[in-house]
């Protein structure tokens, strides 16, 4: 029914999608999988007309289509339910279903008809929600059902669901799945974007995997064991027994200890220890809780259970400021909104953590700042004419280097790195890795997430494996190899 061939999308300097192919049949549920940055959301946005495409074709029922906006795609019969729900929380359920295409009588909206329509759309899903209720008063799952009802009301024949289960609990997921199965039987084609392996096996018929903007596999669910799927996503064959001889031995001194640290709806109770000079990895798929673990440890999110001890001293009610003063630093995953300070110069961005640590009344002199900045620019190979260029004019990789440098100059005891090498060119990747190794040998401890297993194996002496927001294993020494990690990650099937 829907046939995408050789679809490409370029942003300035980046090729986000490269000759991607995907097909969707009537009554098929296809999973779209891939790590962050693999191109899933770009694909959806191009498909629904939110982005113009750079090349390739989209056929719908054999006809070439060219949606120019989400509204246009809706008219054609392609509806999307976004992860961050694209509904108005301040309007009623009926309005959310009908708005944009309401029945009108004498130029006025016919609310009676709207309610009727929404009831019938909700009935089709087999759920009962009062059409007059305010959307914002419903649970996330119910809101999701309303979004699906809206799509059905628009005569959608292709339904795209972007990470629909990431904020639902088990019962709600069950309800959603039974609805999706019912729609499938009615002949709808569904594209299901997710990162939960188990759900793919439970619900889907086929899988398309993207990696780095290209097709990395096209499977039928029944013929694809989980480990094959994982390796397609992470880009490694399950063969070589990688060694990690380069990793230095750490001391026995525990610098960070988490005891049943957790937050509801975010990540289960985690307990782990980080030793001086150790590089501890956090493995797991996207959504497994690796980023959340770092954020909880740093106090960027408030933990509601558990205790955290830094260098033997307990830290109560963690906040970033307290953790920073205790000697931690973080390179967040979301560089644009949590990393850089747009509009400020490279220099200001770079010295910020150090200055923050010193307090406002002990400023670094401009000369000192320039010395530090020039040294770091040279050391990390940051491509900028000088420290005064606004950071938003740098490429993503260079921005990431500035943020790394921001922490390196303040000599933290423990660095939390969330995908530290994403979006950096190959050369700098190696530099960053060897930098981590060197700093570790000098006594800095690291807690590091990476979606590339290879990277974890290369730099970490020990790794924690997360699955479905729980810590499921701790691997070190001989156990720490690719096959084992993949096996544990894929074990989430059932």
């Amino acid at each position, binding site marked *: 029914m829907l046939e995408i061939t050789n679809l490409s999308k370029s942003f300035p300097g980046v090729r986000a999608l490269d000759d991607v192919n995907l097909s969707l049949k009537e009554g098929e549920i296809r999973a779209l999988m891939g790590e962050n940055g693999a191109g899933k959301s770009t694909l959806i946005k191009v498909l629904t007309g939110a982005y113009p495409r750079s090349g390739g074709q989209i056929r719908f029922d054999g006809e070439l289509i060219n949606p120019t906006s989400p509204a246009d795609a809706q008219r054609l019969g392609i509806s999307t339910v976004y992860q961050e729900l694209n509904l108005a929380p301040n309007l009623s359920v009926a309005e959310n279903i009908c708005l944009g295409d309401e029945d009108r009588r004498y130029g006025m909206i016919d609310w009676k008809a709207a309610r009727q329509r929404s009831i019938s759309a909700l009935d089709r899903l087999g759920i009962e929600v009062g059409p007059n209720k305010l959307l914002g008063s419903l649970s996330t799952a119910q809101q999701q059902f309303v979004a699906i009802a809206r799509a059905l009301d628009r005569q959608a024949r292709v339904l795209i669901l972007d990470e629909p289960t990431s904020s639902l609990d088990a019962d709600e997921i069950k309800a959603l799945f039974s609805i999706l199965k019912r729609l499938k039987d009615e002949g709808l084609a569904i594209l299901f974007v997710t990162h939960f392996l188990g759900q793919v096996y439970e619900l889907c018929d086929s899988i398309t995997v993207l990696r780095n903007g290209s097709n990395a596999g096209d499977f039928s669910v029944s013929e694809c064991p989980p480990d094959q799927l994982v390796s397609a996503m992470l880009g490694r064959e399950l063969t070589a027994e990688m060694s990690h001889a380069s990793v230095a031995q750490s001391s026995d001194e525990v610098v960070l200890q988490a005891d049943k640290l957790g937050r509801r709806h975010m990540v289960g109770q985690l307990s782990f220890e980080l030793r001086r000079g150790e590089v501890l990895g956090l493995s797991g798929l996207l959504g497994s809780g690796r980023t959340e673990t770092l954020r909880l440890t740093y106090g960027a999110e408030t933990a509601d259970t558990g205790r955290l001890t830094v260098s033997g001293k307990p830290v109560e009610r963690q906040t970033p400021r307290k953790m920073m*003063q205790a000697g931690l630093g973080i390179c967040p995953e979301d560089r644009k909104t949590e990393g*850089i*300070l747009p509009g400020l110069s490279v220099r200001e961005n770079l010295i910020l953590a150090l200055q923050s640590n010193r307090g406002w009344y002990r*400023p670094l002199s401009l000369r000192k700042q320039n010395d530090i900045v020039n040294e770091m620019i040279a050391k990390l190979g940051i491509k900028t004419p000088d420290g005064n260029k606004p950071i938003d004019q740098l490429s993503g990789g260079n921005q990431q280097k500035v943020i790394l440098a921001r922490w390196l100059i303040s000599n933290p005891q423990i660095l939390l790195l969330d995908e530290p090498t994403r979006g950096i060119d190959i050369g700098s990747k190696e530099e960053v890795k060897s930098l981590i190794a060197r700093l570790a040998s000098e006594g800095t401890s690291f807690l590091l997430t990476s979606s590339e297993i290879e990277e974890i194996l290369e730099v970490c002496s020990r790794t924690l494996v997360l699955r479905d927001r729980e810590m499921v294993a701790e691997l070190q020494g001989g156990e720490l190899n690719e096959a084992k990690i993949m096996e544990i990650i894929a074990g989430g099937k059932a």
Partner: protein
Amino acid sequence: MKRLGPTSVPLIGLVALLLMNAALSPGFLAVTVRDGHLSGSIVDVFLRAVPVLLLSIGMTLVIATGGVDLSVGAVMAIAGAVAAGILVHPAGTPFANISGTPTMLAVLGIPIAVAATAGAFNGLLVAAGIQPIVATLALMVAGRGVAQLLTNGQIVTFTDERMSALGNGFWLGLPIPIWIAAACALAVFVLVRKSALGLFISATGASERASYLVGIPNKGIKVFAYLVCGLLAGVAGLIACSDIKGADSHNAGLYLELDAILATCLGGTSMTGGRFNLAGTIVGAILMQTLTTIILTRGVSLEATLITKAVLVIGVCLFQSPVFRAKLTREKSA
């Protein structure tokens, strides 16, 4: 084209305006010595610019944190009312029971403290997560009422020499308000640029989440910015009140908050927070006053300044807008 420094655009504008006016009315730039102090149109321009200048400096800090303070005009009125009240303790006002001659410290210190408190109050509301426009709007509406309450709705005049010297006196040949403005500007500049406060203010305004992660106390920074803004509004209020030898609660500082926002905008500070430019703001404030003076001396009605200001602010904002810039460069390259 070589990149111009951030202050040079408004500065070029100011110089061009001054030169233009000097060409049109000879003697505009002439400074003569009269009664042992400097006098001339140019001195007058600077003198008149003082209240707006003081407000703009505070406003720049507030806007840099990503906010705005609409209440500065009202705070000016309150400060003036408190000062006059302490001096004159007129009947029918809350000051009526004070007796004796107050010390100058009380006359100046108490109003400024009150103004700073008002600013800190705004800051606390904003730090608690209330939108800045709204949080300061409440004080803008209520503040003028409070000022009128303090003066019982009258214009409280005074004859105190010490107080009127503040707005009308001279020191080393220059009007005292100019000295005060210079001192305040210098103090803020040193406080903000010679410590890391300026960096923290910019960081808060540029990205609150990113600053939070590097441990910058965003809330404290906001309270600080609004406090300084209130304090400077207090100083401006004292000068305005001393200038007319009375506290006019109804008109003191009326609409000056808008001028202060415009001056900040003209000075090249981003309206959405982040990078700020104190020197640019100062030039912007003087530029606006020059414009007003020119329009007045040229016999064009005062009203035209309002329209000019409106067009200026939209022009500057458009120039700052990335969409507009993109359009411009696209057309240039096409």
